[in-house]
């Protein structure tokens, strides 16, 4: 089962689904021939595609729209905010190659403010799967939720088998009290390996996979803030508006404080290169992450 198989299965069983793309077919290449009447390609038109999806949702369809995350969330931002957001319509917005996954494309293709933009829209929820297994577990629930949803598409190979998915519920690995690593999406695999490296050095580590940064699992985050000496936020996103901001807002709202170490893109676009080289260059490999955290906790 992959993403395309899942859409095929869901669409076949439920005529409300309509799969729409702004000529981004990478993840859905064989669907047109399989579900002809539930597939629509609007061409390179992110704005029109989102408007069309809103119109279809008005007629009780569940539109799932596809484009590169950067063009979808920014070129079509006002259509998402104004048509889908104000309308509170159950349009499912699937952004391809978000964060580091745009690897060698360059800054035009780097969706590293997408979480910030999408979470500012009332009613909008966000799903950032850690890998293909997480994505396939989450999507059936995300697609049938009545809210608009932004999905950071991520089909990387899983390192772990994920537990059942619930919107607003984080997946927690370990109950360590030295360090809690909070992350979402693609960097989960690096975080998982960083946890092992730190544990080899004797630290007790908790890893929190925040599957839906909005709605955030407040209990998981606040418990970690209470229990752990250091909170690490790890994200392939600008430091502004993403997980570090979400955590800061949550702590303030609850009159709590914590020692927080943010690992994010500090007000700059990342070096375009092949994915593994990007991680190495920007300091986001598991080893680099573990080393940074160790230096920080010793300081």
């Amino acid at each position, binding site marked *: 089962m992959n993403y395309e198989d899942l859409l095929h299965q869901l669409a076949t069983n439920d005529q409300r689904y*309509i799969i729409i793309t702004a000529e981004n077919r990478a993840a859905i290449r064989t669907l047109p021939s399989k579900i002809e009447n539930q597939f629509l390609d609007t061409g390179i*038109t992110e*704005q*029109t595609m989102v*408007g*069309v999806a809103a*119109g279809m949702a*008005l007629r009780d*369809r569940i539109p799932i729209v596809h484009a590169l995350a950067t063009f979808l969330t920014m070129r079509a931002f006002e*259509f998402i905010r104004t048509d889908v957001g104000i309308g509170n319509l159950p349009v499912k917005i699937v952004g391809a190659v978000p964060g580091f996954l745009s690897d060698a494309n360059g800054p035009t293709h780097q969706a590293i403010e997408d979480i910030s933009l999408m979470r500012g829209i009332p009613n909008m929820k966000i799903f950032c799967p850690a890998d293909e297994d997480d994505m396939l577990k989450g999507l059936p629930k995300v697609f049938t939720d009545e809210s608009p949803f932004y999905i950071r598409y991520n089909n990387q190979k899983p390192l772990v088998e994920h537990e059942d998915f619930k919107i607003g519920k984080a997946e927690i690995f370990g109950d360590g009290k030295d360090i809690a690593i909070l992350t979402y999406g693609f960097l989960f695999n690096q975080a998982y390996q960083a946890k092992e490296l730190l544990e080899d050095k004797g630290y007790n580590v908790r890893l929190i996979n925040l599957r839906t940064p909005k709605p955030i699992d407040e209990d998981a985050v606040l418990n970690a803030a209470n229990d752990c000496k250091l909170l690490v936020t790890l994200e392939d996103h600008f430091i502004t508006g993403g997980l570090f901001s979400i955590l800061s807002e949550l702590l303030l709202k609850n009159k709590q404080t914590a020692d927080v170490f943010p690992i994010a893109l500090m007000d700059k676009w990342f070096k375009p290169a092949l994915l593994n080289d990007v991680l190495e260059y920007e300091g986001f490999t598991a080893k680099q992450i573990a080393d940074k955290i160790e230096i920080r906790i010793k300081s």
Partner: protein
Amino acid sequence: MNTSRRENSKTMTKDEIKKLQDQALRVREHIIRMSGNGGCFIGASLSCADLTVYLYNKFLNTTKDNLQDPNRDYLFLSKGHDVPALYGTFVELGWMEKDRLKNHLKTNDNIYWHPNRNIPGIEFHSGSLGHLLSVSLGVAIDCKLQKQTNKVVTIVGDGELNEGSNWEALLVASAHKVDNLCIVVDRNAFQANMPTEDLIPLEPLEKKFEAFGCSVKRINGHDFEEMENAFSSFPFDKNNVSVIIADTIRGKGLPSIEKRADRWFVNFKDEEVEALLKELHGVAKAELTSETLTVR
């Protein structure tokens, strides 16, 4: 032109035309009453009032009782600030209590400067220009996918056509042969602050739409017979989007504000509103002392 029109036309009786004219006059009264106590976008509302009256009385199958029916016809008001014309029409159709218009701009209701779905009959909110062509396109495509015969009408402003998203949506509409979509341009020849042709010229507008694959008719948007002739031949061509460019007059019905760039948005004093109601009925020209406003 008249000859060919008559040959193709589905004619209306004089009584039918008079009935529409009378209703449009009452809609204009409602609009004028909304032009005080905070005001409204009176110019565009008056320019499209005859269109909304015609469409709901003669073209759309929509009634008070089928507003949730997936087989109903749809009307989308894309430019949005002409919504007083729609509210006035809804009152005349009996969809909305007349007294409710007194809630215009009040927090106890949802009758404000742009349309929203809290008002029965409003299909979608608008206000940000260049959105509803794509939203209505989604509705129209879905109607076709569901093998339904609904008509989908979208009224766009001419100034609104500056927005590129309209032309993007037209490309997609033509590609998908969306012949159940009828775009009506309220061609009042003004945008917010000046005539369209003085800022971003649109003419020759028919050719622009035709170049995007649409079938186009151009009519006088205040003449019910011309509307009947054009709309009764919808869709103009199978497989094409139909476009009706309705030449209208901004502020139509009130000579003291007609075609005046500075009377786009107005907030009149009570006595001016009363004087304008008299002017509408041809009693006497209103004397207007309120400041002219440009919101944009």
